[in-house]
């Protein structure tokens, strides 16, 4: 069950180094063929690359406030994901300073699944000067009944 008191919970800050090898590995996995992911010493990240934040987050105790949401493993799903770049996307060699926060919890009625509980977590990525470079916005949903596997 989603814990309502997790609203507003903020994770500990963590650093994320954007690395050339990880960019190439990720680009290959998502069939990104543009030469900009491989050229030069500072290739650009694929559009959904910031999902690799979890690797960096895991290294810092308390960095991921999603753990506090306590969404059911069986009835919880990733409903939506968004990545926003405030200017050109990060490149290899960039060090990002990140922090995640549970920003919204809301409910919606569904005829087939009963009450749906949505939870939104926003991770902000800043540069060393504090400028906001990117945001990752995760929306999870928990159904009252288990979803039917199709």
């Amino acid at each position, binding site marked *: 069950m989603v814990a309502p008191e997790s609203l507003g919970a903020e994770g500990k800050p963590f650093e994320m180094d954007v690395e050339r090898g990880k960019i190439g590995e990720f680009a290959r996995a*998502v069939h*990104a063929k543009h030469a900009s992911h491989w050229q030069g010493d500072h290739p650009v990240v*694929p559009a959904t690359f910031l999902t690799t934040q*979890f*690797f960096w987050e895991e290294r810092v105790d308390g960095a991921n406030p999603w753990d506090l949401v306590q969404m059911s493993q069986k009835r919880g799903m*990733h409903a939506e994901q968004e990545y926003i770049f405030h200017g050109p*996307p990060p490149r290899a060699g960039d060090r990002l300073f990140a922090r995640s926060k549970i920003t919204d919890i809301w409910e919606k009625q569904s005829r087939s699944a009963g009450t749906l509980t949505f939870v939104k977590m926003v991770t902000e990525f800043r540069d060393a000067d504090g400028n906001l470079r990117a945001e990752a916005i995760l929306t999870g949903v928990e159904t009252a009944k288990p979803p039917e596997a199709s």
Partner: protein
Amino acid sequence: MNTPEPRTFGPVTRTDFVRYQGASGDMNPVHHDEPFAKNAGFPAPLGVGMFPAGVMASWATDWLGPDNVRRTRIRWKAPVFPDDQLTVTGSIAKEYDEDGEARIDLELAVSKADGQVVVQGWMTFVRPEGL
């Protein structure tokens, strides 16, 4: 501006899921461990939602340039399983100026061979020079 041809990929395999999981760091066993997935009620390992979503975004960035993307929004509509054949389609929804830059909004989808949409997407790009 001409929209590129749709991109078909697959039939997707367990190896595609594992390669994506290794790259992303999401090692949830439901996406690769057959007994675990079956125990959770799935007929086979459940595709990682971010994998087709990532391929969808790549279709657009291969076209308009990865340096130009400013926003990618993804919504999951249906699960993917091994052997699904998937197709990425997209079109220009809007062209406009914002903050002194020419922008393009795209609407995208990933569909199964029978037409069922598995991922919907919306992306915003800075319009590349010369296009």
